[in-house]
């Protein structure tokens, strides 16, 4: 390497900027939310809401189903009870008529 090369390397070395340069650059960086940050922020919340809605809906559907089943059971029991009662009433009526010697 000749002398001129040495002088040129020394003379044109990298040079640090004036103090505060980095701060001045950072102040010019736009402070807006990135699109990816916006999407990422509400996705977990939306997922939680969706899961909750599905859960509540499923539970409600099951509850309605159970209520309907109970109602059907109650209805069939009532009908059975009515039939029994009706049968017993008829039997009692027949007995009474026979005791009185009446015609059915």
């Amino acid at each position, binding site marked *: 390497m000749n002398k*001129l090369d040495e002088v*040129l390397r020394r003379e044109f070395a990298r040079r640090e*900027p004036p103090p505060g340069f980095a701060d001045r650059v950072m102040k*010019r*960086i736009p402070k807006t939310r990135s699109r990816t940050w916006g999407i990422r922020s509400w996705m977990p919340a939306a997922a939680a809401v969706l899961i909750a809605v599905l859960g509540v809906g499923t539970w409600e559907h099951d509850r309605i189903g159970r209520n309907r089943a109970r109602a059907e059971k109650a209805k069939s029991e009532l009908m059975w009870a009515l039939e029994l009662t009706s049968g017993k009433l008829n039997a009692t009526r027949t007995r009474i008529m026979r005791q009185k010697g009446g015609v059915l």
Partner: protein
Amino acid sequence: MGSPDGFGKLLRQYQGLVFGLAWNFLHDEASAEEVAQDVFLELHRTLPSLESDAHVCNWLRRVTVHRCIDYVRRTRRDPRVGLEDAAEPAGQASEPDVFLSGRLRKLVASLPEKPRAVVLLRYQEDLEPAEIAGVLDIPVSTVKSHLQRSLAMLREKLERMQVKV
């Protein structure tokens, strides 16, 4: 690399490279800072597409030099002169090192934009001609020609000023 901390780290790591190239090219602190700030703002926008530190470094060299060239052409702060017409500061050097620095800077600052960029990339960044050709997007032969002619001019003019190198 894309996080604010990552960008801050790159800023501190490469501010000497960017500001140095701009200052050595433009020979004016305010202009150099303007160019350097713009380069880093563009880096911040471009960072997601850069893959490594080496890629960042190469990108910074390319963008800084091109912005300096555009700045000179836009403002015409230092009129372009041919290599042979570069002005020689008057007077003799009694202490070579004292005057050499200033004269050398003025001589390099008087070079046309592309030869000036070649000299700075060679001596500030220590790049080989093939690397300089990649940064400036010019043929390697052109880089070598610029380098050879610029150095020959510098030696000749310094000799005329009786500055020993």
